[in-house]
């Protein structure tokens, strides 16, 4: 079963805070492959896919950030119209709901990070459909 460890960081809404994370990771040579921000009026959750998640946890904890790891699924699909819809339709058919997702596209490929309501079910149906599921090192 291929899942990816996503790093979530608790952030107050205050100027420069996202950069504090980016800077700390950058200084330790940790690359960010993708990220998204979920925000409320006073705080947010920054979700990241990084090149070395274990090291990133250590670096951010040392700077007093509250961090937690979450299993997510990363799918690679063609960067063409309708490709995402085909995948989502399949998941909805099997009652797999999406808590949140974010995506990034480059050239001919698009990568989608999904946090499903049921990780096992999600992977099962994606594998059955021969979806291209990425592992940690493939990003």
């Amino acid at each position: 079963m291929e899942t990816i460890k996503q790093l979530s960081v608790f952030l107050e809404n205050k100027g420069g805070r996202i950069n504090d994370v980016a800077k700390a990771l950058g200084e330790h040579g940790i690359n960010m492959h993708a990220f998204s921000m979920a925000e409320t009026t006073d705080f947010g959750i920054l979700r990241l896919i990084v090149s070395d998640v274990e090291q990133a946890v250590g670096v951010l904890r040392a700077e007093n950030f509250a961090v937690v790891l979450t299993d997510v699924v990363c799918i690679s699909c063609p960067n063409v119209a309708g490709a995402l819809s085909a995948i989502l339709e399949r998941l909805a058919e099997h009652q797999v709901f999406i808590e949140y997702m974010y995506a990034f596209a480059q050239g001919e490929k698009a990568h989608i990070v999904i946090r499903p309501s049921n990780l096992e079910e999600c992977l099962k149906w994606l594998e059955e459909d021969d979806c291209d599921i990425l592992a940690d090192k493939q990003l």
Partner: protein
Amino acid sequence: MNNEIWNRNKECMSRDELSDLQGKRLHKLVDLVYHNTPFYRHKMQELDLLPADIRTIDDIVKLPFTTKADLRDNYPVGLLATPMSEIVRIHASSGTTGSPTIVGYTSRDLEIWKEIIARALTAYGVTRGDIVSVGYGYGLFTGGLGAHYGVEHLGATVLPTSTGNTEKHIRLLRDLGVTGLACTPSYALYLAEALHKQGLSADDLKLRIGAFGAEPWTENMRHEIEERLGIQAYNIYGLSEIMGPGVAYECGCKDGSHIAEDHFYPEIINPETGEVLPVGQEGELVLTTLTKTGMPLLRYRTKDLTTLMPGTCACGRTSIRFTRILGRSDDMLIVRGINVFPSQVESVILEMPEFAPRYMLVVDRKNNLDTLEVQVELRPDSFSDDMGSMLDLRRKLGERLKSVLSISAEVKLVEPNSLPRSEGKSTRVIDKRVLA
């Protein structure tokens, strides 16, 4: 339970004997300030009072009050009752607004001070065999030096760690097998946290007794400190204007703080009218220094809100006690017409393990309506990637605050270790209201 009493003669005196002693001391005190402190002479003349009019302790109600403003107005040394040549030490309060307040001690005052701290330490169970780390700030603040000389007077070993270097503090606690700790309750929690961060626990230390004061704290905070440091935690009360720590102290019963009544006479008044309230009613604590000679004060308004508890304590001391300080009449916030004490907010936060025991209250006025924001630190291990559960946590705290405070507060979750930590008195309130 520990039954040792440092000064049985004074701490267990019969009430009649005590009141007789207090009357004699008050008479001497009034004579001293009338002749040596122009401020008090003028005040007494305005009231048409002569020292001879004060014969028994009950006559105290005839005397004028002293306030913090009087101390500032007579800055720096206008309230001394003795020439500077007799003063052997000076302390000063931080004075967040205007001038600091200066307090001068004669060598006799310092003798009394260390005596009352030895009484307090004995009541907590500290003996000559103990090593006590004093983590109050040393310097102009009375906490550090006050506690220091008290520990020495008792005959225990004092470790003058002061504030600031927590890492070294922990190392010395371990290496020396320190058994006693005197500091602010918030610093005790900070130490517990620092210990935890180093992968250590109470089991790695030999601490058994803590003397905490200089800021109001709650019963919940006591339980948390006791559990995390593996100690018995006791309150020590004092204020620099009156003496410093040791004016009152808990005993093994942990049921109110005993006032060193042969030196400090307590009254409870209605903070708005100044009317003296019967024993047992809640109000502002007023203290008179019966024996001080450097800077004696008549009926000093402490602003601390409490209730006096008469009756002999199970520990055997006859000295009157007061209940945990409910708040300060000047700390009390009035938000949308409701009285709010920071200690109420604190007790709610301490009941929820998801939050660190640290908070900040921000009061503001928007569109003519008061707003109260409670900032609270999330504990790192309570953070979840699930936004729903984070919002639930915030809502839960908001609901509990509303039920305790009777007004709604906006809860703001802040990052771990982001609120200012104080090693002396905690500053927990920001009032941004500008009243015309």
